[in-house]
């Protein structure tokens, strides 16, 4: 039977690029962009992309019943990939927009970069935008074929904090070291945009389509 990969569409802008990149690397799987939590409930794999502000993201998720659908997919054992704000929404809490409760799949917080400086004393620009290196801090099937310290494309002003070390799959440096990838059982989530990080990002998506946690 054809595997169904559900890409959550909850009205937050450019979610199609994730679907297009998945289609590029798919090997027989059907990529379905959906706003229906029922499709998520029966999908073989779930991709949870996100852009924009966390307040709008959580509101749109809830209004479509996706909050419950994502939590259930996480606890049911369905391979789940969170991207960018999708990763942040999997934490317990975000300080963006005056403080927002998130889905609590990971026990972390989302905090602003604040004013930070490079090792040379320059003030670092926020958003953290561009290609930065990811240190793979534990082996994981999602890293297959991707060299350690490969560069991925980031664009974000808030970062995840407080995730236990054994749930960190990769870290990145930008004024401080922060989790760039987190993992827990069947859930993997990344702060960067694999769909915009050719070629290694496409390898990561390919790994996700093969992943059997």
């Amino acid at each position: 039977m054809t595997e169904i990969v559900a890409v959550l569409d909850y009205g937050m802008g450019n979610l199609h690029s994730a679907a297009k990149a998945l289609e590029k690397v798919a090997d027989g799987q059907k990529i379905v962009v959906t706003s229906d939590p029922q499709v998520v409930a029966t999908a073989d794999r779930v991709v949870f992309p996100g852009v924009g502000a966390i307040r709008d993201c959580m509101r749109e998720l809830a209004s479509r019943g996706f909050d419950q659908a994502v939590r259930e997919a996480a606890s049911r054992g369905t391979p789940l990939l969170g991207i960018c704000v999708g990763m942040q929404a999997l934490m317990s809490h975000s300080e963006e927009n005056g403080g927002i409760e998130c889905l609590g799949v990971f026990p972390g917080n989302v905090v602003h970069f604040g004013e930070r400086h490079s090792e040379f004393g320059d003030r670092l620009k926020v958003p953290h935008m561009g290609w930065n290196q990811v240190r793979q801090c534990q082996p994981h099937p999602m890293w297959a074929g991707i060299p350690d310290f490969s560069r991925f494309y980031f664009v974000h002003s808030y970062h995840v904090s407080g995730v236990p070390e054994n749930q960190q799959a990769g870290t990145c440096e930008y004024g401080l070291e922060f989790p760039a990838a987190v993992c827990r059982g069947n859930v993997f989530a990344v702060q960067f945009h694999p769909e915009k990080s050719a070629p290694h990002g496409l390898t990561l998506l390919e790994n996700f389509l093969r992943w059997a946690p």
Partner: protein
Amino acid sequence: MGLAKRIIPCLDVDKGRVVKGVKFESIRDAGDPVEVAKRYNDEGADEITFLDITASHEGRDTTLHTVERMASQVFIPLTVGGGVRTLQDIRNLLNAGADKVSINSAAVHNPEFVREAADRFGSQCIVVAIDAKKVSAESESNRWEIFTHGGRKPTGIDAIAWARQMTEYGAGEILLTSMDKDGTKDGFDIAVTRAISDAVTVPVIASGGVGTLQHMVNGVLQGGADAVLAASIFHFAEYTIREAKEYMVAAGIEMRL
């Protein structure tokens, strides 16, 4: 190790074709933007900027279609600018597969538009393009103003104050073009690049004037730019993006190779 500086080739697109010319082809028609973007992607471009210079209304649909084709084949960030005037324009471009949109004269006519756009779609996808021209005399301290209509129409707006205002309104990035240097191949206007980079907390892309690889190095090391944008130096295949990056690495700049 850390965040790399970026090289962004810019495609000027008219009615679905790249203009300004690439090597061995006529000036008016330099090829299919998707093919050109793919080539740049293969050479290691960090992003692609697509500037729509189509004047006609029908042309806009062609643009959306081109963006759609590009986004399904090129998996690096894509910024689209030119004629972005309404929230619906932005939504259409994002839905077609653009990652960021660049707003220029619509911001000058109505600064609130930038605030609305950032509120609705997030600062991460709102680039404000600034066309600046030096207006101070030799004996005075440097002052630059915003110009519209390809550098012909002065607005009386101070470029540095404008850059600050636009980031306060939610611009996630500034694309700064020196109208004095654009097309000259004399190098960036380093002074305005440095002034604006120091004035704002968001990344600044330097544009206008690149003629040599050393100009790109100067834009980053002297101008403080986070990214450099260039068109003709790559279109005419004087240098590949890979060569440009190797040159910048040799100058001590962190790049993605």
